[in-house]
Every structure is written in C-alpha cells, then in structure tokens.
C-alpha cells in the first residue's frame, strides 16, 4: 500500500494558545475622536489587554512601521493636520505600506455608500455604538487570528470555496502550504501559481496569497 499520508494545516505542530499571554503581547491602538465611542480602556487593561488610546493619529510612521499588532480605526476626525485627510485614506496608506497589518474598521457610518471601501479594506469591522462584550469578542477574535495559523487556513478556504474551487484543488493548496511551512519557504511564487490556476478573480487571488504567506510565516516560526 502506498504510504501516503494527507498533510493538513491541523496536523502541523504549533504551540497551544495561551490567551492571557497573547493579550499581553498583542499591542492594540484605538484611534477615535469621540471619547465615548469605545468603552473605557481601563476596563480592558484590567483584563490584561495591552491597549493604547489615541484621539487622532499621533504618529503615522509608528503605524506604518507596524508598532501595533491591531489598529482599531474610526473614519472621521482621526486625521492629523498634515497627511491623510480621513480614516479611509489612513487605512489605504497603511494597507499599502503593510498589507498584513490587522485593522478593525470602527465607525457608525455603516450605511454610507462612500465608506463601503473603508469596510471592505479592513480585516474586521466593529460598528458603533458598541458594548464592552462585543468589543472584547472582536479583539479576542483578532488576537486569536493573528496567533493561530488554522484561522488563516479557514479564511483562505472560505474565500476559495466562495469562488467555486473544488475540494481536490483546496487539498492541493493546503498541501503546498504545509510543504512550504515545513521547508520554511515564505516566498509567494509557488502558492500564487497554484491559487491562480484555481481562481480567476485577481482580488481573491491576492488576498488568498497574502493570507497563505501570513500562515506560512507564522507556521514556520512556530515549528
């Protein structure tokens, strides 16, 4: 019998998540001009979150250099005197500089057509007004997602499945990712070619490749 064993993301050895430690090590910044929009940060600090609050963008270079793992960004009234004029421009700028930066769009203007790009560009969305419980859930999800390689795979899978990619092709993509994790090969070339052969949509391709590279980097580091 052929000694073939299916390699999956779940079978990769990775460290067990310690949520308390992750909360401390994951730095979060909340940028919102309304002091009442986000629950008091002291509530989160008391629970071990490493969280900072800015009324507006205090240092764009700090954001661009990935000083924070998670950015919670409002759309209006957050821009400084110079540079980008609103949250949407900041979001575009940050995603251009560092596509892997995790940004949570935080706004009450969810029904405004002009802001659709703001919601779509961000990695997650948080709608105003927001309760403490909902806030915690969103932040915990983001922290887990940044730390857990399986989350990346779930996201990739969902994206590709929504484009009608077959289970066989998905297994091939998974196998390629696992192979690259084991080799520590973070170059996107092979995975991009494979994904491009399954999906025509360029946006979905780019997103899936970005996520795959994130997964490979995190997976290789955990090995």
């Amino acid at each position, binding site marked *: 019998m052929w000694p073939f064993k299916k390699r999956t993301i779940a079978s990769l050895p990775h460290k067990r998540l310690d949520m308390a430690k992750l909360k401390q090590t994951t730095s979060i910044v909340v940028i919102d001009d*309304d002091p*009442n*929009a986000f*629950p*008091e940060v*002291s*509530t989160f600090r*008391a*629970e071990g979150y490493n969280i900072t609050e800015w009324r507006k963008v205090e240092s764009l270079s700090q954001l661009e250099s990935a000083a924070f793992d998670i950015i919670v960004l409002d759309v209006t009234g957050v821009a400084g005197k110079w540079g980008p004029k609103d949250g949407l421009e900041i979001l575009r700028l940050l995603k251009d500089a560092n596509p892997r930066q995790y940004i949570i769009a935080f706004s*009450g*203007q*969810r*029904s*405004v057509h002009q802001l*659709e790009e703001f*919601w*779509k560009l961000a*990695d*997650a*969305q948080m*709608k*105003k*007004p*927001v*309760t*403490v*419980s909902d806030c*915690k*859930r969103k932040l915990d*999800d983001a922290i887990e997602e940044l730390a857990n390689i399986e989350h990346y795979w*779930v*996201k990739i899978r*969902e994206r590709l499945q929504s484009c009608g990619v077959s289970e066989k092709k998905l297994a091939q993509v998974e196998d390629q990712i696992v192979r690259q994790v084991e080799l520590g090969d973070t170059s996107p070339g092979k995975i991009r070619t494979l994904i491009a052969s399954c999906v025509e949509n360029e946006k979905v391709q780019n997103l899936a490749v970005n996520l795959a590279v994130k997964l490979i980097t995190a997976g290789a580091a955990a090995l």
Partner: protein
Amino acid sequence: MVSKAGDLAAGSILPIHPTCRTCDHKKCRAFHGNASTNLNVLKCPKGLNCFAHKDDKETVVFIGLGDPSRVDLPRSFSRHREYVVAPDIVRQWILRTTHAIDHAHLVMTEDTERAIQGLHNIQPAVNMVLRAAERPINMHAGSTFEQRLDASTQAERDLYYAANLLTWMIDIQHDLVRPETILHGERSSTPIYEMVDRFVRSFRLLAGPHKRIRLEGQSYRRPRCFDSVATLLFIILHNAIKYSIENQEIVIRVNDPGNYVEVSIESYGPAIRKEELDLVFTAGARGRHAREFTTEGSGRGLYVAHMIAQKHGTYIECTPPHHTVDYDGIPCGTNTFAVRLY
C-alpha cells in the same frame, strides 16, 4: 398601461393587452395612421401599439395607450374615431411618467439618506448612555467585566441591559434602512448561546411583567457567522415579543444536536396561516392576523432576517400553530421560528 421590461423593447415578444376587446374579433384599424410607422412605436399581436422608452439603465414600455378623450389632447384629435395618438403627445406622456418615476426615486433616496443621517446624529448620545451605564459596573470588584456585572446591583444591571438594547435597536434600524449593509464583514466564531442569553436579559425588561421569557438548552458551540447574525436573532426574538399575547410564555431553545446550533423561538400570538409561510419573509408583507393584532410593524424585519439567513447558507423555518383559539376575534396559536447555524 405601463410595464417595466428590458427585453420587450426589442419588439420581438410583446405582451397582449388584457382589455383589448376590439382586436379579438376583427382587425384593429387603430394603427393604420402615421403613429405606427414612427420610431419607438411597435405593434402587439392584437394590434395595440407599444412605445418603448429607454434610459441608461432601464426600458419602460407603454402598451396599449388608450382613449384619447380621457387625456389632455388637442381638440382636433378627439374628433377622430380611431384611437390615433400623435407621436409627440406620446413622447410627452413618456417624459411625464419618467419624470414622475425619477421624482419618486429621488424622494425614496432622500428619505433613506435622512433616516441614516438621523441615526448618525443620535449615535453620540447612545454612546454616552452606554458608557454611563458601564461606569457603575466597573466600580465593583472583579477581574473581568462579566464578574463585575454579576457583582452589581439589579438596578445597575437593568440599566446596562437597557443600554445594550438601545444599541442593538440602532443596529437593527441601520440594517432595516439599508439592508445591503448586512453584506459587510467576514465570518468569525460566534458564541450564539451567549448572544441569545444577553438578548433575553434585555428583552425581559422590554416585555415587562406580563410576558414571561424562558431560555432553555445550552450550547458551547461557536459557529462561524457574520456579524449580522445578531440582527437575525434579534428580529425573530423581537417579533416573538411584539406578536405575543399577555400572560403567555415565550420559549427560546438553543441546542446543538449536530454540527450546528439551532435556535428556536415559540410564542403564543396571532396565528400565521399555512398559505402565508413564504409571504411573511417578503418585503413589506405581514400576516393577516398579525395586521389585525397590531398596526405596528413595517413588514421588513423578517425580510431582512431571511436575507441574513440566506447569506449564512441557511433558512428560517416557520411552523404555524396546529390549532388556534380566538382572542378578541383573532385566531391565536403557538408560532415557531427556528434557524440552524452551521
């Protein structure tokens, strides 16, 4: 008669005018004049004329333009025995109708924008209420917010849940005003039981002492859902409270018998009829007995809930009551709404 139909403009398939009686028996003489040879004028198989008006997006087809004596026409035309309508007058009709449609669309858009602006304006006040409700809870001892909430007084908890309810109400209003916003976001693992539990705590305040709400079952499963799942559950729960009679229990069950979480809501109120099962999920539609029971409600809630369920690849199962009893002349029974989240 005006109908919107993109492919009718080609003139190949033209619908038959239902009131064309003359054409059934003899050849219609109405269009032997110049009108039928004009641009944009086509004939239906029964001899009725058909005018297509095109704009960038849509085509409006006018079929069987009727009796000239009923409309504002020059005197000379009313003397004609045949129903001949001059092309320029037809064009005027078309223009007037198009303007009317454009105006109606503009009013609708403005209304939506105004509603959104209104929601946005009250948001800072809602934020303040929320933060004010959280402050006294944070003064209690406890390492997490949930522990401090448990340690707080009943009055403080009530205030907190009332503020939560206000927040969710604003959320729902956004989704009702512009349902396409439910398409935002991505799936994330969602603690359904916790969510329903929080809704129930808030809804107990809303329902008052005469409507009891009981939560049964337990589930630790966290299916991957969109944020809008909260809107779905909220709408079904809210409907159960709104359309239930006093001194009757509302039972909410959350279970995970398989690889899914099932939320079912039973309430005793105006009976949904079997023939209305699909209708209640249509925009603007309400059940006959529900309309008799209360005038409140726009008929959009279940429509939006249905859209959200579809987005999750599932559906809302509605079970009408097996038997009904009349309350004030309205047949009432136990209606059940259930949804499975995978």
